[in-house]
C-alpha cells in the first residue's frame, strides 16, 4: 500500500531560535561554573587562572540566558505569571524558580571568589578602580563564604541541567526528545562548549597558560568522549531495538536525507575537535574552542529546531527557513551581541590578568 499525502497541515516552529540560544547559554553557564570550582572554590592554585576564565564565561552566559528565554515567550510581558500562577506539575514552572536562584548564586559566588582580585586591582583613583573597591567591599579573602555560595550554586546549577533536560525529555509527542539519554547529551555537550569557551576567553583576555589550556583540553576531551559514548548508546539502543523509546526516536528521523546529513555532521563535529586535541597543531586552541562551541550549539539547534520539523501526524518533514527578523537571525545575532556587551563589562571590571598574576597575595588563602 502506498499513501500519498495530498492535503495536510504544516505547523510552524514555536520554540524559536531564542530557545536554542537559551539552552545553549544556560548549559554553557552551568558547565563553566562547575569547571571553575577546583580553581576558585577548592584551592587548586594551578587551576585558578583557568577557573577565572571559566567563571567569566559562566557569568556572561548566565546573565544573557534568561533574556533569551524571555524573548522566546510569545507573551514576554506576562513572565510574572510564572511566579503568581505556577503549575508545579510542569518542569518549565520549576525552571522559573531555578533560574533566579542559580543566577543569583552565581553572581554571589563570583563576588566571593574574585573580591580579593578586585580589591587588589582597585588601588588607583580612576573610576574603574573605585568601582572595583566598592564591589570588593573590603576584599579580604573569604574561602568559607566562597565554598558556601559555591554549594548553593552547584545545587541550582545541577537543577538547571536537570530541568532543561527533563522539560524536553518528557515530551512524548516528540519521539526524538523523549529519550532518557537526552538530558545527559545536553550536559555532555554543555561541558564541551564551556571548555571551548574558556579556551577562547583566555585568548581574548591574553590570559593563556599551559596549565589552563591543559585543564580545558582535559575537560573537553572527557566531554567529547562522553558525547560519543552517549551517541553510540542512543544509536545502538535504537537500531538493535533494545529499547522501544530509542527505536521510536531513531525511526522518527532515520529515513530522512536531511537527518542523515545531520548525523554525519554531528559525528564530524565531535570527532574533529577530538583529533585536534590529540594532535595539537599550532593554533589548535582557537579552533578547538570554536568547534567546542559549535558542537554545543549545533546539538541544541538540531534537537529543538530540527525536532520541531518532524510532523506528529503527517508525512515528510516540515520546512523551516530561518527568518531574518527577531524570531530568527536577528535574535541569534542579538543574543550574541548582548553576550559580547556583558563580556566586555565583566572583563573591564575584573583586573587585568597579568596584573592579577603578579599580585597573588590577595588571592583567597586556604
Amino acid at each position, binding site marked *: 500500500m502506498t499513501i500519498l499525502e495530498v492535503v495536510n497541515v504544516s505547523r510552524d516552529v514555536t520554540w524559536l531560535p531564542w530557545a536554542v540560544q537559551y539552552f545553549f547559554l544556560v548549559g554553557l553557564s552551568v558547565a563553566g561554573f562547575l569547571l571553575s570550582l577546583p580553581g576558585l572554590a577548592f584551592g587548586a592554585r594551578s587551576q585558578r587562572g583557568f577557573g577565572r576564565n571559566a567563571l567569566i564565561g559562566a557569568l556572561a552566559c548566565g546573565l544573557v540566558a534568561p533574556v533569551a528565554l524571555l524573548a522566546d515567550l510569545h507573551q514576554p510581558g506576562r513572565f510574572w505569571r510564572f511566579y503568581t500562577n505556577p*503549575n508545579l506539575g510542569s518542569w518549565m514552572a520549576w525552571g522559573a524558580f531555578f533560574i533566579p536562584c542559580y543566577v543569583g548564586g552565581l553572581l554571589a559566588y563570583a563576588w566571593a571568589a574574585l573580591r580579593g582580585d578586585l580589591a587588589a586591582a582597585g588601588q588607583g583613583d580612576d573610576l574603574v578602580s573605585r568601582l572595583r573597591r566598592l564591589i570588593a567591599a573590603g576584599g579580604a579573602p573569604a574561602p568559607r563564604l566562597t565554598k558556601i555560595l559555591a554549594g548553593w550554586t552547584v545545587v541550582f546549577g545541577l537543577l538547571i541541567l536537570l530541568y532543561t533536560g527533563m522539560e524536553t525529555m518528557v515530551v512524548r509527542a516528540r519521539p526524538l526528545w523523549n529519550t532518557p539519554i537526552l538530558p545527559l547529551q545536553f550536559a555532555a555537550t554543555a561541558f564541551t562548549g564551556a571548555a571551548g569557551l574558556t579556551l577562547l576567553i583566555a585568548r581574548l583576555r591574553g590570559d593563556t597558560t599551559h596549565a589552563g589550556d591543559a585543564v580545558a583540553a582535559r575537560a573537553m576531551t572527557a566531554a567529547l568522549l562522553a558525547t560519543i559514548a552517549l551517541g553510540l548508546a542512543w544509536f545502538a539502543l535504537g537500531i538493535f531495538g533494545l529499547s522501544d523509546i530509542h527505536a521510536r526516536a531513531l525511526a522518527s528521523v532515520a529515513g530522512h536525507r536531511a537527518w542523515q546529513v545531520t548525523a554525519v555532521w554531528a559525528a564530524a563535529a565531535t570527532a574533529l575537535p577530538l583529533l585536534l586535541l590529540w594532535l595539537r597543531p599550532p593554533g589548535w586552541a582557537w579552533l578547538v574552542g570554536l568547534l567546542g562551541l559549535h558542537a554545543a550549539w549545533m546539538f541544541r539547534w538540531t534537537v529543538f529546531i530540527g525536532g520541531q520539523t518532524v510532523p506528529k501526524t503527517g508525512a515528510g518533514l516540515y520546512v523551516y527557513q530561518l527568518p531574518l527578523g527577531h524570531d530568527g537571525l536577528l535574535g541569534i545575532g542579538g543574543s550574541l551581541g548582548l553576550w559580547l556587551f556583558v563580556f566586555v563589562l565583566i572583563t573591564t571590571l575584573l583586573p587585568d590578568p597579568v596584573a592579577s598574576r603578579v599580585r597573588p597575595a590577595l588571592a583567597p588563602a586556604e
Partner: protein
Amino acid sequence: MPDSRRDFLRGFAAVTVGAAAVAPAGAAPTPQAAVSPDKTPRWAMVVDVAKCIGCQSCTVSCIYENAVPEDSFRTIVSTYEVQEGDRAAMVMLPRLCNHCADAPCIPVCPVGATFQRADGIVVVDADRCVGCAYCVQACPYDARFVNHGTQKADKCTFCAHRVEAGLLPACVESCVGGARIFGDLDDPKSTVSKLVAKGDAKVLKPELGTRPHVFYLGLDDRLTGKVEGEPTLWHPTGRETHA
C-alpha cells in the same frame, strides 16, 4: 438533540432564517437542552470518514467562526491518495483537537492556562497564557499552534461559545457530508454514545493513552498514527530541510 447537520436541518425546517443566528430552541432540542440540568455533559465527536468528501467546508467555516489567522488551522481535513495493488482511493481524515481525557497538553502548562472544563472541552485561558508553546510541543496530534495575531496558544474548542448557546460546532454545522457528529457521550440516547457503544470507533494514537474524545468510524489502522506516506504535494521547495 441535533447531532449532525442533517439531524439539525430536519428540526430546523420550521424556523425562519432570521432565527438561525440564535439558539434554535423552538426548532430542535439544543445540545444543552438535551442534557438534564443537574448533569454535566461530556462533549465528544464522531467522524464517519466514509461520509467525508474532503470539501474542507469545516476548515473554512472554523476559520471564519473562530477568526483563525492565515496559515493556521484549528481543524483540517487531511487528504490521502491510497493505492493498493491496482486500486486507488482518496481517504479523508478530518483532524481537530481530540479533547483528550488524559490530555498531555494540560500538565505541561507552566501557568495552568490550559485546562479541561467539566464538560470535557480542553481550553486555553487567553488571559493567563504566556505563549511559551510548551503545550504545542506536548500535543501528540499537532492540534495546537501559537496564534500569530494573539501570540497565545490556540486550538479547537469544540466551538464552546456556540455549544453554550445551544448551537453545534461550526464544523459540524457546515459539514456537507454529515460526517461530523457531535453530542454528549454521557447521554446513552445521544447519537455519539450509540455510535461509540457499537465498539468499532477508533481514536488516533491510542497507544499514547491520551483517551481522545474524537472518534473515527471506518478509519484504516494505518492512518491512526503518524502517516507514513509521501509528503504533501504542495511542499514549497520540494526539499527536506531543517538545519
